[in-house]
């Protein structure tokens, strides 16, 4: 991390400690958006971290944004920081001034029709309840519209954040189409990079919480931490956390599809072990709504499914390496760095 990034991370940590305690997350899940938290992040320029100054951003590089997103993951922050930052990055790529307010992003399966309306379908749109604008991204461009009178149909998400869908064939979206080469793939990669960082942040925090809990909790006359069965479980958890962090560090530039595929596949797979072990060592208290562990594990269970499940990315990796074949397998691995 450079100095700028250390500053961003330290500032974010402080803000989340002050303004993202469990009652804030609970209230958000009950429908009360944490405007105070969002406004603080906006005032400090963090909601546009890593976005070009010329487009109205805070300057810096994509890594700044993703390191910030990792902190949001650790804090289980119930805000569309990732969605807003990805949208801003795409707008900035075309030097378009970023509108005020929250932007969310919708990946469109189709394209513009002859009348200029977007057609196709969108799924898994997050924070559709609170966004003021929507960035509709097709394979080769995007349209920015206000989020007004859009008949979203929502599914309650496992994290408390909903997934919204829309059939654009029934509700065509109109607006100025801005061409951007490979916009769809770019948005998908950026989205996956944010999920990898959200997950890595949350997993590191889950490890810390688990270490703390087993050190404090006394059973059979000694802390749980002193039981070998518990120690070995946490050793496995620490291995997964370290691997996920290494994956998250590898996608900070968000410009390499293979790194993103590896990160999403590896980190998503880790969620199974991480949630299993952390809940097991926390016992029944960790299964309560009251305990803060579930704020992370429920989000992990959602983030692993967003922007491609493990399997989708595994297939992409597998096909890519099979194309070059067995004799080149090792050379391709070392090329991946």
């Amino acid at each position, binding site marked *: 991390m450079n100095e700028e990034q250390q500053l961003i991370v330290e500032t974010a940590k402080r803000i989340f400690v002050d303004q993202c305690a469990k009652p804030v997350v609970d209230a958000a899940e009950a429908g009360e958006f944490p405007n105070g938290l969002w406004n603080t992040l906006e005032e400090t320029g963090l909601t546009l971290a890593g976005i070009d100054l010329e487009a109205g951003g805070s300057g810096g590089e994509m890594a700044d944004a993703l390191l910030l997103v990792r902190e949001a993951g650790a804090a289980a922050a119930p805000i569309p920081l990732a969605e807003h930052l990805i949208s801003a990055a795409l707008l900035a790529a075309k030097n378009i001034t970023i509108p005020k307010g929250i932007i969310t992003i919708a990946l469109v399966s189709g394209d513009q029709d002859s009348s200029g309306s977007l057609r196709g379908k969108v799924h898994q749109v997050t924070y559709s309840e609170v966004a003021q604008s929507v960035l509709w991204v097709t394979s080769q461009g995007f349209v920015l519209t206000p989020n007004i009178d859009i008949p979203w149909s929502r599914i309650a998400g496992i994290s408390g954040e909903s997934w919204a869908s829309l059939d654009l064939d029934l509700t065509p979206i109109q607006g100025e189409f801005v061409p951007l080469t490979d916009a769809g793939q770019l948005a998908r990669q950026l989205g996956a990079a944010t999920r990898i960082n959200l997950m890595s942040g949350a997993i*590191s925090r889950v*490890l*810390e919480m688990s*270490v703390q809990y*087993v*050190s404090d909790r006394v059973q059979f006359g000694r802390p749980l*931490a*002193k039981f*070998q069965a*518990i*120690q*070995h479980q*946490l*050793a*496995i958890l*620490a*291995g997964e*956390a*370290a*691997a996920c*962090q*290494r*994956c998250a*560090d*590898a996608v900070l530039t968000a410009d390499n599809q293979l790194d993103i*595929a*590896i990160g999403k*596949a*590896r980190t998503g*797979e880790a969620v199974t072990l991480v949630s299993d072990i952390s809940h097991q060592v926390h016992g029944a208290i960790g299964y309560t709504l009251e305990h803060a562990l579930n704020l992370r594990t429920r989000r992990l269970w959602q983030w692993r499914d967003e922007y491609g499940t*493990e*399997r989708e*990315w*595994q*297939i*992409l*990796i*597998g*096909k890519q*390496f*099979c*194309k070059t*074949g*067995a*004799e080149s*397998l*090792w*050379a391709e*691995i*070392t090329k*991946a*760095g």
Partner: protein
Amino acid sequence: MFQFEPVSLPAAAEALRLEVRAFIEAELPADYLRNSDFNTGDSAELSRKLGQRGWIGMTWPKAYGGSERSFLERYVVTEELLAAGAPVGSHWIADRQSGPQFLKFGTEEQRQKYLPAITRGECYFSIGMSEPDSGSDLASIRSIATKTEGGWLLNGSKIWTSGAHLNHYMIALVRTAPASDNRHAGMSQVIVDLADKNVTITGIKNLAGDTDFNQVFFDDVFIPDDHIVGQPGNGWDQVMSELGFERSGPERFLSAFRVLVEFVREVGSEPNDEQAALIGRLLAHLITLRRMSVSVAGMLQAGKMPNVEAALIKDLGNTYERMVPEIIRQLTPGEVSPRFVDTLNQCILHAPSFTLRGGTREILRGMIARGLGLR
């Protein structure tokens, strides 16, 4: 909690990689059944040729035959040899841990005597740690050297000693004082000449039917005073340092790599989705492990002692290499080549050793837990 900072390999290391690849292609016969398990193939001829290239003892001072190259360059050479499935067993232990022990704890005379020969690929070492009644509980060893005129008389035995029947020497951890309340006191590392007439080496067949490891008996073996490595009584601390060298390398996650290569060959350039997903899953693990292992090489280069990080990679890596044959076998296409079957079966047969050698999974997890502050 544990940091594995990204490290990119310098251009010199990448240039070296191509040299190693060309060397392997020229040296390995086309019909050689490649095995990326460092412990399953040995060739004194190949080791000597590697020595001529300066690829043994690479990081050691030139005064002792080394090349004074970086840990990152050494990393590249070791991973290239393993990935290609070259028979590296002869010199592996001497290069990885015996030589570094001499550099760290040995006398000038010992360094002069052994290191140049090791770097030439002509002098091979075995590890003398486990005993019949002392496995993971290494501090309970009973082999004992008693003081005599000009040296020590060694009695007892070591077990699971890979390559003792092929190698020249063993660095053995033995008692040089009777056991006391301080279980880590009174131990020393000594050099045992495996050709000594009072040393008896008995092969033990592993479950694959190979005789790789042995029991080594010491019957009044005379150990001259100058065959003690480091300080008498300091053996325990020295062994802990030695195990740090033993754990972080690519041999801890590449043992099953040739199975993956042969699987990719079998499925061809157009795998079905299930096969592609399996290959992608294994590669996502492998590439991440490799990146973490390069981070540790970077820590070694920076003069750090990443013992817990090494234990963590070994545990993750061993878990991965145990998983590879287990899931690949289920997706094997109907008609497969004898080469694929041989490679897969060899891996399955040797896989139980992956999580035992160099520290069991249970010992490693204990170390990681200590690193987390739990014990």
